[in-house]
């Protein structure tokens, strides 16, 4: 009998189970209310900002400045400074828009869906994942505006009561985007803020400087931690989670309509909504990893963001990665099964055309590397490898959007109009600039707001658990 194997399994399992609660351990053992609060508030309420933070903030600020330069030039001269042309009239701006929006999805999934599913492991990561969502939406939201030929008229996309009685054209998926993204931005910000209110209370109480006391005092909205407050807080969180949950599915579905509604082969596909949503979560989790791994290292948060988190995120990526793989497979299958020449040619061109290299990058980064290795728990719990994978998947997902946008456009129906697409330095500056802007905002968040929800972590501590065992011990 292979009892040895079984025993080993049990032993591993044991290590992962909290002896006190009998539940899977989310955070490292030995944490108390005080240690958690200390750890998290100290990052913010310290007068000694680490030098590394300044260094990174400088880099982020410099890149964000570069973005401003690129945008200023763009507004002065026109979108012609980019590589977009005929027939590829969309390029980096739309690719980046979809990429950033996709990244945001993991935050909402973690904060809303996992809350509803009572996945308490999310507690350690949901705050900064939500922050990531908001900053990603900020970066994403920039692009639809700046990619307009006449950005100063961007408000025409809003359904405002114009004196000319002109309304937007409601059949256009771009119109739907406006609603989807703005709703998403609003719900995300509100959800994020509400979640922080108890922590703001803690911060207010622990702050020593007057400014911090006022600032966090204002932010905490008079939070006193009464049972009534907690009750309302929990209800609000659940309601917002309920509101945000459909958004996880709907926002990227609507974004995918930008493509799916068009007639272009390579865009005109019904698989796009689920495949975009899965891709969004895939890339979103990759981004959470990209952020979490350096953060926990830098701020010594290994006890709060444990291997278990990394492992779980790896599993989510594995699952969503396979949905994405299914999407790719279906595109190829339908190209053949539809017997449509347009589809077949598009697929041939995507794989073997002049930009076939992009498809190769996409398959390598999104399928070949992650989906073969993420099965291994050993690799999933290897911090270095997971950081590597997160970068690989982010790259792959960027290329997915590149492939969808560009390779569908540059060789479409009339062969006479075939062209090519080559990004300019302004495209790269804008893209890298939004990475800088994201970094800039995220570092501000890390510095001034509690990046891990103390209140929620505290609920996971053994002391907060009222289980049968503790109840029995207490003699209730």
């Amino acid at each position, binding site marked *: 009998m292979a009892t040895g194997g079984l025993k080993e399994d049990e032993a591993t399992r044991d290590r992962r189970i909290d002896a006190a609660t009998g539940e899977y351990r989310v955070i490292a053992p030995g944490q108390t209310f005080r240690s958690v609060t200390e750890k998290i508030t100290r990052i913010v309420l310290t007068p000694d900002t680490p030098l590394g933070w300044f260094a990174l903030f400088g880099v982020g600020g410099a890149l964000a400045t570069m973005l401003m330069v690129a945008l200023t030039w763009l507004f*002065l*001269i*026109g*979108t*012609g*400074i980019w*590589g*977009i*042309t*005929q*027939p590829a*009239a*969309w390029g980096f701006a739309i690719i980046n828009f979809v990429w950033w929006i996709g990244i945001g999805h993991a935050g909402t999934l973690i904060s809303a869906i996992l809350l509803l599913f009572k996945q308490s492991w999310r507690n350690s990561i949901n705050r900064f994942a939500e922050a990531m969502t908001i900053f990603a939406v900020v970066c994403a939201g920039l692009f639809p505006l700046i*990619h*307009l*030929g*006449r*950005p100063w*008229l*961007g408000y*025409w*996309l809003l359904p405002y009561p114009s004196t000319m009685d*002109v*309304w*937007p*054209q409601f*059949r*256009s*998926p*771009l*119109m739907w985007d*406006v609603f989807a993204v703005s709703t998403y931005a609003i719900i995300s910000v509100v959800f994020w803020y509400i979640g922080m209110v108890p922590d703001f209370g803690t911060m207010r109480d622990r702050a020593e400087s007057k400014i911090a006391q006022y600032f966090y005092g204002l932010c905490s909205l008079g939070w006193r931690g009464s049972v009534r407050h907690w009750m309302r807080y929990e209800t609000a969180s659940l309601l917002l989670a309920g509101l945000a949950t459909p958004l996880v599915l709907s926002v990227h579905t609507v974004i995918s309509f*930008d493509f799916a*509604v*068009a*007639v*272009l082969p390579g865009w005109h596909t019904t698989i796009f909504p689920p495949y975009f949503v899965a891709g969004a979560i895939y890339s979103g989790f990759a981004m959470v990893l990209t952020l979490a791994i350096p953060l926990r290292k830098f701020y010594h948060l290994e006890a709060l963001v444990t291997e278990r988190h990394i492992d779980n995120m790896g599993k989510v990526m594995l699952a969503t990665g396979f949905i994405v793989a299914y999407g790719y497979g279906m595109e190829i299958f339908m190209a053949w099964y539809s017997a449509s*020449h347009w589809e*077949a*040619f598009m697929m*041939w061109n995507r794989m*073997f055309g002049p930009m076939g290299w992009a498809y190769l990058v996409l398959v390598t980064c999104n399928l070949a590397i992650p989906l073969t290795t993420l099965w291994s728990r050993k690799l999933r719990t290897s911090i270095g490898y997971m950081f590597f994978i997160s970068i690989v998947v982010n790259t792959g997902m960027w290329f997915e959007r590149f492939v969808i946008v560009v390779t569908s*456009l540059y060789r*479409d*129906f*009339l*062969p*006479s*109009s*075939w*062209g*090519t697409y*080559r990004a300019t330095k302004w495209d790269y500056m804008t893209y890298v600039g939004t990475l800088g802007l994201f970094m800039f905002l995220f570092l501000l968040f890390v510095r001034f707001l509690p990046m891990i929800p103390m209140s929620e972590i505290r609920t996971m501590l053994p002391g907060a658990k009222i289980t049968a065992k503790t109840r029995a011990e207490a003699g209730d």
Partner: protein
Amino acid sequence: MSETKNNLVTTIQPAPMTLDAVRQELKSVKGKRYWRSVDELANTPEFQAAVEKEFPGSAQEWVDPVSRRGFMKLMGASMALAGLAGCTRQPDEPIYPYIKAPEDLILGKPMYFATAHPFVTGAVPLLVKTDQFRPIKIDGNPEHPYNQGSSDPFTQATLLDLYDPDRSQHVTFRGENREWAEFAQEFRQKVASTKDGTGIYFLSETITSPTLARQWKAVQAAYPKATLVQYDPAIAGTVLEAGDLPVYELAEADVIVSLDADFLSGAGFPGFHKLVREYADRRKSPDKLNRLYSIESTPTTTGLKAEHRLGLRASEIPAFAAELAKAVGVAGIEPPAYAWTDEQKKFLAALAKDLKAHAGKSVVIPGLYQDTSVAGLALAINSALGNVGKTLMVSQDAVNPLPFDQFAELKALVADMNAGKVDWLVILNANPIYNAPADLEFAAAFEKAKMTAHLGSHLDETGQNAQWHIPAAHFLESWSDARAYDGTVSIVQPLIDPLYGGKTSHHILQALLDEPGLSPYDAVRQTWKATSYWQVDVKGDFETNWRKSLHAGWVEGTKFVTVSKPPTDASFKGKVPTLSAKDSLEIIFRPDPNVYDGRWSNVGWLQELPKPVTNLSWDNAALVSGATLTKYGLEEDDIVELTVAGRKVNAPVIVAPGHPDNSVTVHLGYGRSFAGRVGSGAGFNAYLIRTSDAPFYATGTMKKVEGKWGVAVTKSHIQDHRPKLFGGQGNGNNSLEADEAISERGIIRYATLAEYKADPGFANEGETHTTTDKSNSLFPNWEYKDNAWGMSIDMNSCTGCNACIVSCYAENNIAVVGKQQVRIGRNMQWLRIDTYFEGDLAAPRAYFQPMACQHCENAPCEQVCPVGATVHTPEGLNAMVYNRCVGTRYCSNNCPYKVRRFNFLLYSDYETESLKLLRNPDVSVRSRGVMEKCSYCVQRISAAKIEADKENRAVRDGEIVTACQQACPASAITFGNINDKQSRVAKLQADERSYQVLADLNTRPRTKYVAAVLNPNSELEATPVEHAPAKG
């Protein structure tokens, strides 16, 4: 504040420059040598500051990556300040609109005047549209028997040439401004002092005006020793310089053979408008198809349109013509011995057989740029076949009133200059320093002329070197006369006063005559009063006839008197030149299809226009076959050094499908240094290797040099390397685009005559070829109650000559974007001619498909615009609301025809004053960030509807003519109301050959194409590739 203002005005010190310093400064200037003041010339910081203060917006443009545009704008602005202010800007004083308007002027209502474009291959009769007395659109004269309303790219573009901001504006003597009277006086006195005209030389472009010829004869009578030399680089050495051309009547020709004659692609071939019309008329119905054979040395639309095309090296063509003459039974021909390939022999045999079978109903057309023996042989063949008097008319008259041997005369002139015999050399609208044959070393000889004067529209290469320069008036600014291909005389009447006080050759010659001040108007009237032309045929007094002629646009009864009998001796007397060695490299010189001999270098429309066959814009190139490219180890866009007899020039190399091997075609007219802001520096100067003894083709060498040129080709052309599994041919010999377009995509549909007879509905059968059902859209269908505008394009007629595109430029105020923007695919033409090369790229056939907005009834663009800037009108137009467009470009992405054009940058020129006069006031000038596209000329539709409303009637069929339709010499485009079942367009659309491109997408386009039916000779290979759709 006030201080800085004062600074501006007062601190510009007079530049302390001596005359020598000025000359020094001028010498170092590259590009144009305009300068408004000594300050500008000295380029002092004060002056720059002043310019910058005046145009603060322009200052930053210098860093614009699109530097040519930025440069153009800034120059335009600074020139407008000084040069043009007087004629177009409102004065500072208060002014009032007309109290009494000119009698026939209704503001906003255009007026039309008949005139003619005097061109070296024959005048093009015109009807010019003016708005408030500004010419804004040039079109053919619809009543004229020769062109019947059609035009060509050159003629269309002369409009922009009129408003070219770089035209020279002052009479100058050694760089200093003078008056015309000063020149006239000095010239007259000098000539008078010679008594007999010794030492007085004129070098003119080919004289086409009968009045000018008369004036010259008068000058010659007064000064017998004065010498006139005519030189046109595109005419010299051809049969055109003598001008005795047969007039072809293709209406009667069942079989047409072109011996290197490019008669379908542009006005460079005499009689283009008539020949295309008659050729195309026979292509409209499959019942009366003609058959075109083309033997050519460089691929042209004529050859690619032909049923059967044989690519031969230029030197082989005379020998082939001799073989053909022998084969059809011309007596006394002994063709030189040559190792023809089996394919060539087969072609020859089939062709000769077909010609003999169609004796009297066939015609052989010789090319211009061939050895004169080809023309002689062609005439001999035509005579032998009994075609003379049926399909071609021979005339004693010549279109050219003063026939010359241009090369010989020019050589004599150069010799005289070198011998110091030339006291005065007056150059009339010629640019010999740029375009004289390289072996004559004209520029060096020019220095030896004692006094030189140059009449020209631009301060061009010759103008820069001449001592006197006189700005020439444009033909729309001056009186003259000219004869069309059929001999009909048109009076060239001006529509606008000379913008810059230009003069004409008439003025200069008249200055030597008894009445030196006689205006060209009076001179032209004198000509026609004195001659017998209309007094013979038309009764009535002169004034009445004069008015009638001006009104109609031509002088009645001036057609050539043609002889319907063959010339008494049509037998061939010339000598067929010996062939060059088979592996030697031939370099073929041709005038450029866009800028001709270089005279239209500064016309942005023509520079940007993709050339037929190659789709190259903004450059010329060394065109070679794919095999030659490989043989020399080259890639496209590499730079090669071409050498002819020790003279070298560097050129980019590109592939022209169908080009004969071991042969290179170079187009003349590029590489100019003083063309103006648009043309200077574009391409390379092929005149540098063109010599007078081998002006059409020469043997030379080609070798690769370092670097890439960066040509702008507007269409991708990729060889099809796909394996058979993916629908390819597997060998890379074919064009990927064409294989796609002709097979499954059904973009090009055609049949041979036999196939058509077996299955007349071929165009709408097969899987992707069927039109969708109206019920399968989620959106409700539009209903069109009154009018439903539609277009029909005949694929069998279109010869890809590009006239429509230039016409569209003029009508719709389309911007020119510059080479760098074209290179990355941002050209703005609303209409393009898609060219697909069928079959082996070494010997293809091409299909030309004019492609503009299809005005889909179920338009993909309309559904995706988030702001409703592209909307459907009740008449089915897909309208673009520029003011509402925010520029998401989603419409363009979703347009399956990719006909939308986006203003990625500020392409329209808002600053250059002279270009403001050019604009069509009925069409918005589009700003940056706005999408635009073909509107079916909605302004013309509206104008016609307003007229119809006033008269309380429906718009008549044919009342609305789109700009492209109007220009088309082949009448390939028909426009009208498809709700009116009696309209021509409705009938054409109902034709069973009519098909919609990409109909299976359910876009329901309003433009339909009539599928081509070819008439191949069954003895030769019928069709190169599989073209029938999959039968579903």
